[in-house]
């Protein structure tokens, strides 16, 4: 129920931490993450669900947070780029992006990293077509994607080598 200001209390879990967000019902998840929680790693590129810069994981699904009204996040598990590394230990995908040149200007990178993680969760050893399709919702204007594909392959190799 909205409070006297018209805002709703939205309990959810962000990067493993239980929080209650306060926002207008139609506020975008993107804005609430960035403004209320100051999790500015999630970027706005287009505001219409085309570029994927605002990608986050919502109950394990990759979503454009600019298209998610905050009420849809009620009770959800949300993961943003800030929750990907474990302390100082980078995720295999993050490490691979550094090694392979998957990040240039870096503005699409948070969304792209989450898209890659989501892809690898569904398919631990994607072939090239699967990588291309898995990342097709995330636009990058710097790399021409080639180094991003290489980063995903490297992340698989590094993960295999460890396990």
């Amino acid at each position: 129920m909205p409070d006297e200001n018209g805002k709703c209390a939205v309990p959810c879990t962000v990067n493993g931490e239980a929080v209650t967000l306060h926002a207008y019902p139609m506020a975008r998840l993107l804005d609430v993450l960035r403004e209320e929680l100051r999790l500015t790693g999630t970027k706005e590129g287009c505001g219409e669900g085309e570029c994927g810069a605002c990608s986050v994981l919502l109950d394990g699904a990759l979503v454009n947070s600019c298209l998610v009204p905050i009420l849809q996040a009620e009770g959800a598990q949300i993961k943003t780029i800030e929750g990907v590394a474990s302390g100082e230990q980078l995720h295999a995908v993050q490490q691979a992006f550094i090694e392979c040149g998957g990040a240039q200007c870096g503005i699409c990178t948070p969304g792209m990293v989450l898209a890659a993680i989501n892809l690898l969760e569904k398919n631990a050893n994607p072939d090239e077509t699967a990588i291309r399709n898995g990342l097709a919702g995330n636009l990058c204007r710097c790399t021409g994607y080639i180094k991003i594909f290489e980063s995903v392959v490297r992340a698989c190799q590094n993960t295999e080598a460890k396990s």
Partner: protein
Amino acid sequence: MTDRQLVGKPVPRKEGRDKVTGQARYIDDLHFPDMLYGVTVRSNAPRGRIQRIEFENDAIPWSELTVVTARDIPGENSVALILLDQPYLADEFVNHREEAVLLLAHPDRHLVEKARRAVRIEIEPLPAIFSIEDSLNRKEVIWGEDNIFKSFQVEKGNVDEVWEGADFIIEGEYQTGAQEQLYIENNGVIALASPEDGVTVWGSMQCPYYVHKALLKLFPLPEEKIRVIQVETGGGFGGKEEYPSMIAGHAALLAWKSGRPVKLVYDRAEDMAATTKRHPSLTKHRTAVTRDGKLLGIEIDFTVDGGAYATLSSVVLSRGTIHAAGPYNCANVRIKSRAVATNAPPHGAFRGFGAPQSIFALERHLNKVAATVGLTPEEFRRRNFLHEGETTATGQVIHEKVDLNGLMERAFELSDYYQKRESFAEANKFSVKKKGIGFASFMHGAGFTGSGEQYLQSVVGVEATTEGRIRILAASTEIGQGTNTIFGQIAAEALKLDYDLIEVAKPDTGNVPNSGPTVASRTVMIVGKLVESAALGLKQTLVQGGFLTEDYTQENFQTACLAYIEKHGALKSFSQYKQPETIRWDDEKYQGDAYGAYAWAVYVAEVTVDPLTYEAHVDDFVALQEVGRVIHPILAAGQIEGGVAQAIGFTLFENVVWQDGRMANSQMTNYIIPTAADIPPIRVFFEETPYAGGPSGAKGIGELPMDGAAPAILNAIEHATGLSFNHVPLMPEALMLEMEKS
């Protein structure tokens, strides 16, 4: 001493960790206490006279808003760049649909957006023009006396004498469309401003000192009271070369009037519609050749649409003009060119800067010439390539070792060109989908044109910090291309220190010297060379002062720095660009050494054209280039791959739809750039012939990959379909029209 050789090694990107963890802070990620949000109210007519401005909607608390019009400008109402023709805010007349008229700011960004929509600007329309043809024909004169921002004429030999004796004279006309840079981070700034404290601007930008120069005109303040700081920038590609001067001025005006920090960040639709795009172009070729395929004379007429104000059009035109005759040896060349005014938002810098437009025309035209003579495209080029000792269109003698034929043959081997040229032609007889392979050969000059670098006189500093580290001081920005990393490598290599010991200062005009703008493929070759010499100067200071001997360890070096600082207070070394005596350029005649060095390239594209959907798809792409020494193989390949991807977009995807001088498809939903699913394998290969003028032998590469893909792809489509297309973007609709005819 351990092997510290760093040039050529893929060291980690300096700011890589911050970028992959989401810790890198871009302008929209910054928040100041008491900050207002600014918006821009724009013209609604392509040309006209402002009659009145009304603030409608009584529900909006207008008295709470900061409102800025042209009358509030404390200094000069023009965006200082080359000419002073573009106002910050239109006062009486508007000249394009996106021209800024009024600025608003309020602490509530939703309210200020609502207010923006409630301002009604009444404009009495004046006739407007929207095409190169109408501008050239002076259907209306909208700028100066003749709509011409700038024109050039390049003359080599005597082209008038070649036509009579020519075996063939071949003419052609070629067009390129506008293209949006589409950096994923929109333009944005935050400004603080007051008469007492001066103006400070943080922003997403390529050229802090351009913004500084512009603000100096806008505010009656001394130089030192204006400070411009670049924050992490989410891509530029030229789109953040000149436009940040506009948006920085707007935010600063709002801050000046309100006394509070103002954030002005565009949304995607505003950024696409209002900011600069690649200049549309029209090129006409007339070529004289002999029966055995030798070029006798080249006549080129090159026109770019500059939009409503002069901005950088003259410089874009210059580069396009100089590259128009390509890497070929021809004794008689005439290139006439001009940038014209239309009532569209000003077109501006975009990777390649005029060269992709004129090279597209040339590399399509030469295939036509080859076919007319009865030669293959490659044989025709082989007979006309420029060699060491020969001269370009501007009469520049090529002193570099250049082997374009060798480059072409290697590109053909890598792409299996000869075999595919035959097998596709054979298979196309029987298959529904048509396959083709084509190429383009070209060059791109690095650094500012002609006397540009001499005029800039860029400066770089290197200082030792009290923590025993080395810091590079330069205004050259990291915008994704790897400035921080490359500078770190160059300084570490010069000083024989660890890469991690080198840091790069944030570009802040209050703290770094003016190393010039981050444009023109100049950051490595020109500014990198200054980093190298400033670093060596720092070492020299230590050696000459008796603090260090030539044979030192890293620990010796650090100790020496600290001892020097202890004694003298600070240790800094600066290096300023000095044009080599060998570079000569005549600005009047447009003759001489246009660029210190060129990168040379042959690109090969393989395509499939689907006659059911009329889609052309690039299946494979080989990009081979000679770029001097490669400083960082991953970053260099990343530049080429990214540039080729943008060029594929320019060729087949990115169609700016104009409606009365306004971009009608200013959304990512209907302005389509290539996705991960669209891009072919882009196979990048380098040849490295060290260039003595660059750091460790490097030349510039940033813009090169934008030049060759469009003609290579259309040459491949011609091979696949037998149809000759002479404009980009080539959309399925255009393919359909021609394929249905044939």
